[in-house]
């Protein structure tokens, strides 16, 4: 299994605790947190909520999640200029983004897509994957 492969069991294992943590950060009910909800459009998250969510997830799952990790990782092997031009995601960047955020329904990827709008794509599942990656990194570093 590569770093980018995630099983449904792994996601399901993380999700209940993650939903609880996210609901606390967003001040909503745990039931409102679904795997595919857009954090910004459906759950009214703002940029400060992302910082809060990451901070709380670190405490809940006892992992280290570098800030800006999703955006940084979503570029993959593309350089910044290959990923975006003048604040707009390039077509190569868009393909990379679709692959990285495979949990996001295809119709949510608008074209052209502003880099500032990338967080609109994030869902609770995006954060499940982020936690799983952090857990894997942690396990690797302790081996």
């Amino acid at each position: 299994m590569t770093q980018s492969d995630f099983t449904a069991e792994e996601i399901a294992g993380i999700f209940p605790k993650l939903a609880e943590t996210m609901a606390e950060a967003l001040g909503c009910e745990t039931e409102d947190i679904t795997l595919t909800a857009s954090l910004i459009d459906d759950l009214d998250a703002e940029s400060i909520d992302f910082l809060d969510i990451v901070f709380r997830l670190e405490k809940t799952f006892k992992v280290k999640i570098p800030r800006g990790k999703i955006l940084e990782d979503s570029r993959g092997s593309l350089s910044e200029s290959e990923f975006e031009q003048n604040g707009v995601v390039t077509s190569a960047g868009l393909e990379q983004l679709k692959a990285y955020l495979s949990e996001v329904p295809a119709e949510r990827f608008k074209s052209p897509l502003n880099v500032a709008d990338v967080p609109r794509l994030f869902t609770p599942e995006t954060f499940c994957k982020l936690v799983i990656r952090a857990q894997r990194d942690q396990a690797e570093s302790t081996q």
Partner: protein
Amino acid sequence: VTAHRFSAFSFVDRITSIGDSGIIQGTFRIPAHLDWFPQSLVAEAIGQLAAWYAMSHIDFAGRPVAALAGQTRYFSDGLPGELLSLEARIDSCDTDSVSYSGSACVDERLVLELKDCSGAMLPQEEFDDPRCLEQQFQLLKTIGAKESRLIQLPAILPLHLEADARGIVESDLIIPDQADFFHDHFPKKPVFPATLLMHALSSMLTEQINRSDRGSESSRPAITAIRRVKVRSWIAPGDRVRLRAEGLVPEAATKEIKLSARVGDKLVASAVAELATKAVALEGRR
């Protein structure tokens, strides 16, 4: 640089140690000419110490802004003339954000503790002059700034307090168009400090408690901690802020009060205040 620069809202006089381990220590002498010193400004002093660490860590290219404070716990008052020993422990710090905890003591007496604070790092150029800050940092690390630079406390008072039988208290806070503290916070972009907002919310709550509770001081609840502070948006000069506290019911000995602040319909900040009577608070500290 104005006369109020590094005076009107700067609460670190000296940085006494700063190390790679992520611990920064410093001092602030509470000016003896003040009548009192709010606990929210003790919290501000610790936050500013952490900010010096974070800014110097990235060569003053960015600065943290108050965003999240997991827990601010009050233990005792810092009194005029006393020397606050400040410490911030940086959990993580990079170009995106800083996370820290910290404390303030007078001699061996704990005044206040901050836990799980986090702020986003924003481009310094939008707020301040990086080189000016760097010079001040060098000054704080060497000879230190002159003590008692603060002439008077910011005059921040909520107006027209309204309370109802459901335990909801509301009032308005009018942010002045001009104030000395805006020279420090921040020279290029004046922003109402989150700690002053917390001070205003606390003042509103305390006033309502004093109005409604005629018991002795020891039986009257007081704020012992502010938890889950989340600042969502800037509060600008001239803004009218609607302050709200929910849950101020007279029954329980220990209570949680939901605090919020709105500008128009926009929720700009939220927090939870923990109340306890003096007797319960002292018991909890043992």
